[in-house]
């Protein structure tokens, strides 16, 4: 190597080192937050799940898989898993077609559609907890109008609460969630619809395809990645439901609306006051969710390529 190229090589490696250092400097804040609030709690939850660790007594040393066997032996666990799955299925099956329908309805850019879209999106500004408080008032037999309407239709007693029966509580919550999230999923679906090139529709029209045929043969297949994504979000979100049940039903009546995440809270603060058990259930939820996400991504054919 000649002298100038060595110098050039040196300056290049010096340049690269400087670039790496600057890069790391800029990546420092995000790394600090991750290390402090993401990795540390993940390590800690695993340690806690293997320790006798009560709410008031604190850490009392490792106890192997005791917490896990206690959690798995709790009859409430199976009930809550079953209810969570039922709720997830109901929500997703109802929410997805509504989101798609709304998206098809408002996708054309017109003034009226813009107003409509905004109206449907308004609930997205509310938190799930405050939306739940609002619906708690709406469902109340004393002041809420919904009780009155249902009573007039002969569907229920005027003085009994909609949230007082297991089925009533479930449907009331599903209704709230659909109201809160329809706009959100509509927006996601609209983005997918807009990604379908116009000339595909043009070709379908030239071929003389009916509107329904165009929808089933062109729109739906091309919308598959979007539908897969919204379904994953809906399923994952519903599996982790907490706020709405904490506010509306507290898991009742008779623990009939207990979700898995609500059970974590119960273990920690109400029934067991056992952070070890709560941590064990957290670990199970964490693992289940990673597995479920991986399966869903595979099953729905969302490859890495599409994901980027």
């Amino acid at each position, binding site marked *: 190597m000649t002298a100038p190229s060595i110098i050039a090589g040196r300056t290049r490696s010096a340049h690269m080192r400087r670039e790496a250092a600057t890069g790391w400097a800029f990546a420092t804040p995000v*790394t600090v937050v991750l290390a402090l609030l993401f990795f540390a709690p993940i390590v800690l939850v695993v340690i806690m799940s293997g320790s006798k660790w009560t709410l008031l007594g604190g850490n009392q040393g490792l106890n192997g898989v005791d917490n896990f066997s206690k959690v798995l032996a709790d009859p409430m666990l199976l009930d809550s898993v079953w209810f969570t799955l039922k709720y997830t299925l109901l929500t997703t099956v109802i929410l997805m077609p509504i989101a798609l329908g709304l998206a098809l309805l408002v996708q054309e850019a017109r003034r009226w559609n813009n107003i409509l879209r905004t109206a449907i999106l308004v609930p997205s500004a509310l938190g799930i907890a405050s939306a739940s408080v609002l619906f708690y008032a709406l469902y109340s037999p004393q002041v809420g109008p919904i009780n009155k309407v249902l009573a007039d239709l002969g569907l229920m007693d005027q003085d009994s609460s909609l949230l007082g029966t297991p089925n009533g509580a479930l449907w009331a919550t599903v209704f709230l969630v659909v109201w809160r999230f329809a706009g959100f999923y509509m927006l996601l679906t609209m983005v997918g619809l807009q990604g379908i090139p116009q000339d595909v529709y043009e070709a379908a029209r030239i071929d003389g395809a009916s509107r329904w045929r165009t929808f089933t043969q062109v729109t739906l297949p091309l919308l598959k990645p979007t539908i897969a994504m919204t379904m994953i979000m809906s399923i994952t979100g519903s599996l982790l439901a907490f706020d709405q049940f904490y506010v509306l039903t507290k898991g009742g009546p008779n623990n009939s609306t207990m979700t898995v995440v609500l059970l974590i809270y119960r273990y920690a603060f109400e029934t067991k006051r056992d952070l070890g058990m709560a941590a064990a259930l957290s670990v199970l939820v964490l693992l289940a969710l990673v597995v479920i996400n991986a399966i869903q991504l595979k099953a729905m054919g969302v490859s890495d390529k599409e994901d980027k």
Partner: protein
Amino acid sequence: MKSTPLSKGLFYFLTSCIAITFLAPLVWAVISSVSPAPGTSQTSGFGFGNYVALFEYGRGLPVYLLNSLVISLVAIVVTLVCAATGGYAFARFRFRGKNVLFILVLSVMMVPVAALLIPLIVWMQKIGLQNSLPGVGLVLTLFQLPMGVFMMRNSFASVPAELEEAAKLDGCSALSAFFRVMLPTATPALITVGLFAYLAAWNDFMVALYLLSMDNAPLPLALVNMRQQVMGVIDYGITTAGVVVLTLPALVLFLALQKYYVKGFTSGAVKG
């Protein structure tokens, strides 16, 4: 598409019904909060009795609002700082561990907040952030990072490299190029990221429930607690007034910045 007057009329009727369905609960809350009802602070005639009662409820509405504001500000500022600097690092620099770090940021999406709250009760105490409003803001920040960093990275990556080169030739350091050239061009993305952080923080209930005591409660937590305070007899007047007060700032910002909210979706940054 809608050719006949009949189908046109049907379309407008149907869509109006849909719009009303989505707006009705909030409209009801506003009306019911100023309407007279037994068992509330507004027993006869229309008026703001429930709002006066809300103002004086518990530690006082201003305290709860301020708590919500502190959590939101911390979440917005820290999210913006982390997303902007991190996004810049991922968009413009080559360094060892970059791809691994990026995947780790995105992996936050796979981990539900519900699974981290139990260890966070203990951990926040260890790092001196027990019952701390900024602490809650920081936890909420974490879950804004995947979307925020992803959006900012894409936004910076689309800025032509020549702009930055020119700044560096003019003697700008990497830091001042970042502030003077990169950040201004990425303002729309910053607004989107900030809006998402604000909505998440202002509306958060679960993280506050786990990590804060009642006398340090933000408004959503106080609101839920308000409802449970007197078992059996619930003051629905103060409850609906609380919903209105909590919703109003979020709704105003949301409507004003709707364009940026939608952008968060079109950029492909919102993912499960």
